[in-house]
């Protein structure tokens, strides 16, 4: 989920020989401390409660003060946030009214756009962006939603997305522009974006809830925070990549700064910017689903309440509707991105210049008129709906009756032999030792600054008093990542060299990545009910896509002439794979590992819903208790773990790239 930024190696990085000489004694000290230190230095194992600064209370008090006493002169802080919420509420209510609720205009009840209208307009959009095939796909997706009786919820979700996406694009674009224009702003933005992307979403739901009140507008604001960072990053990157020639051109024809931005820079960067738009759309959908917890309603709420009732049938149906919506929106936005390079120039009247706009309006009017006569065109008749709910419930019951023992024994075996021992091991480690080892790794990989960062962040986690929860997070995340890599690497290696296979696999993982994280919980819970093992399965499924993708990308980007050279030297295919391909693909594979960890962490927090005991649970409890301090502190711990992992791996990847001669010592792969 995270576009990460490599930290620059600062200061001398120790050579491998010295680092070995360091690692052996460091390891010895660690083992000694771990095995025999508990009695001598109890504080090194259990961070003393009295040392925990009451940060969470400070945060909660600050929130209280903000809400009750803070005043900005003419109006209070609370009035300001509520005013913002009210402003966002206006377009949201309009969108909701159009898509789902209808509205009373001048005393007349106007019904919303019917399902035929929406589906037809989506088809038109699909045709506009990608021709007949896309038109068929998008209208099929929306038809599917109607047929399976998810229409109303889906439209509520769509309304939130429709409001959040333009706002996310706009804010992201402007922040990115500011970051591009003023170097200082850009530099300050990077760590903020890092935090925005690594703090689990649940953690900022509470403050938002408190500031903006329970309801769809809060959900929209949470979605903004979640979906904006990639747009900002991509904007900055894309603008920096605009050829300097084009900037010179802009200056030479006498562009004012504003013309420079809007006539030269942004249009030239359009292709990359559209990738950002696609990201905003997909992340918004993901978040709108999650934000059902703070009143977004819609499909997410259906899944959530089904999960709570353990009503799998209803949950799966809503889940499929989310998938349909995700696929339609993703393919549409991608088609628009591809299309961005082909502007049309048609001359003529309004209709000739805007055939699709005209067609869309016509469709809407026609479907509304026909809808008056035939209600079935307006709202999909219940009698025609197909409910698969009972089918899924029956299926789950069938599986549970017939395979209960098998599933249960797999689960227990894994729990007893892998999960629990590993968890015990991690919980038993002294935090002082862990901090020391991480600092040492940071120093060896990236220099003094990285060492200070990783060690410091570890101590920070311990100082929140959430060490045990953090270790449970690390254990679940670590195991899931290892399993995901163990599955993803061989799949990646197997498909990398066969174009047709890779095309198929890519379609699958592309689709997997468009699915909101919530969807992954459903089947896992169905088969294994709640608990750590279920959480692990869901996390592995969610984090598999990047593991495969980066492996394949790495393997495929190896210079073919090197492989030919290997073949000419008489390497066997196995030698070519292990000695050349995998070795040269290592930096990419490490970035894949990095992404896998980020995906795993973001999913892990959501699995709090199925009863884990990690930091995610802490955040989730804070959410249910509306305790902003508790949630944010735990959320910052998750962010700290993510940042430690990210920086270490980036530094490692950079090092291996240097060793392979793919990058030079000084310059760092600024991503």
């Amino acid at each position, binding site marked *: 989920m995270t576009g990460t930024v490599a930290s620059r190696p600062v200061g001398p990085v120790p050579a491998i020989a010295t680092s070995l000489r360091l690692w052996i004694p460091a390891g010895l000290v660690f083992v000694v401390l771990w095995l025999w230190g508990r009695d001598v230095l109890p504080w090194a194992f259990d961070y003393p409660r009295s040392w925990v600064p009451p940060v969470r209370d400070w945060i909660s008090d600050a929130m209280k003060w903000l809400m009750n006493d803070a005043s900005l002169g003419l109006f209070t802080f609370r009035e300001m946030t509520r005013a913002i919420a009210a402003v966002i509420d206006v377009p949201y209510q309009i969108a909701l009214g159009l898509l789902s609720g209808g509205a009373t205009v001048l005393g007349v009840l106007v019904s919303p756009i019917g399902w035929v209208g929406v589906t037809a307009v989506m088809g038109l959009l699909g045709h506009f962006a990608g021709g007949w095939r896309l038109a068929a796909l998008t209208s099929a997706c929306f038809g599917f939603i109607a047929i399976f009786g998810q229409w109303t919820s889906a439209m509520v979700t769509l309304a939130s997305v429709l409001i959040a996406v333009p706002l996310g694009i706009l804010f992201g674009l402007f922040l990115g522009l500011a970051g591009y224009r003023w170097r200082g702003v850009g530099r300050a933005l990077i760590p903020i974006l890092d935090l925005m992307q690594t703090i689990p979403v649940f953690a900022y739901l509470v403050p938002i809830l408190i500031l903006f009140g329970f309801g769809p507008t809060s959900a929209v604001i949470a979605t903004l925070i979640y979906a904006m960072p990639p747009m900002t990053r991509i904007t900055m990157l894309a603008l920096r990549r605009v050829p300097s*020639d084009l900037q*010179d051109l802009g200056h030479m024809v006498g*562009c004012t700064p504003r013309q420079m931005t809007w006539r030269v820079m942004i249009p030239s960067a359009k292709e990359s910017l559209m990738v950002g738009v696609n990201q905003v759309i997909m992340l918004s959908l993901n978040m709108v689903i999650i934000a059902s917890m703070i009143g977004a309603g819609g499909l997410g709420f259906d899944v959530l309440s089904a999960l709570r009732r353990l009503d799998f049938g209803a949950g799966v149906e809503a889940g499929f509707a989310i998938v349909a919506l995700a696929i339609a929106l993703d393919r549409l936005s991608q088609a628009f991105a591809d299309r961005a390079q082909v502007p049309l120039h048609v001359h003529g009247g309004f209709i000739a210049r805007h055939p699709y706009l005209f067609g869309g309006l016509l469709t809407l009017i026609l479907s509304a008129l026909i809808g008056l006569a035939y209600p079935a065109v307006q709202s999909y008749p219940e009698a025609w709906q197909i409910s698969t709910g009972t089918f899924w419930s029956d299926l789950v019951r069938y599986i549970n009756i017939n395979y209960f023992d098998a599933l249960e024994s797999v689960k227990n075996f894994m729990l007893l032999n892998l999960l629990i021992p590993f968890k015990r091991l991690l919980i038993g480690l002294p935090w002082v030792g862990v901090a020391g080892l991480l600092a040492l790794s940071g120093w060896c990989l990236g220099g003094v600054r990285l060492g200070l960062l990783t060690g410091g962040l570890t101590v920070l986690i311990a100082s929140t008093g959430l060490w045990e929860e953090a270790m449970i997070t690390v254990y679940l995340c670590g195991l899931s990542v290892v399993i995901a890599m163990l599955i993803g690497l061989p799949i990646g290696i197997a498909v990398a060299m066969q174009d047709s296979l890779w095309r198929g696999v890519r379609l699958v993982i592309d689709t997997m990545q468009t699915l909101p994280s919530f969807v992954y919980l459903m089947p896992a819970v169905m088969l294994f009910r709640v608990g750590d093992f279920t959480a692990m399965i869901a996390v592995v499924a969610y984090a598999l896509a990047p593991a495969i993708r980066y492996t394949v990308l790495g393997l495929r980007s190896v210079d073919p002439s090197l492989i030919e050279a290997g073949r000419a030297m008489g390497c066997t295919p196995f030698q070519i794979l292990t000695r050349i391909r995998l070795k040269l693909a290592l930096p990419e594979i490490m970035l894949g590992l990095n992404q896998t960890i980020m995906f795993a962490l973001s999913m892990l927090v959501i699995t709090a819903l199925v009863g884990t005991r990690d930091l995610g649970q802490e955040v989730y409890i804070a959410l249910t208790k509306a305790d902003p301090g508790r949630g944010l502190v735990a959320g910052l711990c998750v962010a700290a773990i993510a940042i430690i992992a990210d920086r270490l791996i980036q530094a490692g990847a950079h090092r291996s790239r240097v060793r392979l001669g793919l990058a030079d010592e000084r310059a760092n792969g600024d991503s």
Partner: protein
Amino acid sequence: MDRVDAPVATGPGGDRMSAPEPKLVCRGVWKVFGHRGDETLRAMGPDPSGDTLSAAGLVPAVRNVDIEVGEGEIFVIMGLSGSGKSTLVRCLSRLIEPTAGEILFQGRNLLAASDSEMIELRRHAMGMVFQHFALLPHMTVADNVAFPLEVQGVSRAERSERAARMIELVGLAGRETAFPRELSGGQQQRVGIARSLAADPELWFLDEPFSALDPLIRREMQDEFMRLQSVLKKTIVFITHDFDEAIRLADRIAIMKSGAIEQVGSPEDIVLNPATSYVREFTGAVSRSKVVKVTRLMGPANGGSPVKTVQENASIADAAPLFNDGTDCVAVTDAQGRVTGHLARPAVIDMMLQG
């Protein structure tokens, strides 16, 4: 005004007219890249060597350059890659600020111009063609060409009318609705040329406009360029790293080496009297007859009236075929067809034998 009559400071053509105020003057211009380049440069005194600057961790891309470009002249800046040509021309157009020095455009100090004055100047008085075309990928040929006018706020009707004229001028009529990526390199650069001319600038910068093109297309574009200039008569600063191109196009050439100008002069001057060994290396391979103009070898027009004539801007190599049939003497004429002198066979043969 024919280009041979251009008021050049040296060379045979220039002396005959009283040279007016040069269009563009550049005095003691320095560009030093690196941290605090200006302070270091000032601290090092009037003319520090490149080595002392490099030792201070700076890149002296342009060193103490003085040039004057006359009205209607094609001034070519020639140098190898990295010699600072682009940097110099970017200083002249003030795309980057020179570290030191003075640039006068029509007697007016460019470096003192405010941002808005610069915008006005660039909109109406300067045009530039880029090595890699710098076409806006999201715009059609017509829109690209009209872009400078759009920026100025010219009305749509006038814009498209002027753009159409420019496209016609560079021979791309019919391709107005194409996108840059649908065009060949040569065609793309024609669009770049049309665009740079759309606002009818007086001063025309071309930074290696043909370097990215194949040799054949390059040749064709050079001819095209000469044809355009014979109609338009702009003041031109043309950059190239190709000495043959410089000789073909230039009224005067400035040869640059590591940021400094080695020699300025007409192509003949440079070939016949290279100032430094560096310049001699370039000129060694050039056949003189292609450079030397008939005016240099012609005698006074006395006695007889030869049947054949040759334009006075022709080179000896151009005129040589006229003597193939044993003709002894050819009349040299100016642009209006008046005879200005006679070219005798022995002089031509001498020159041709020298290579």
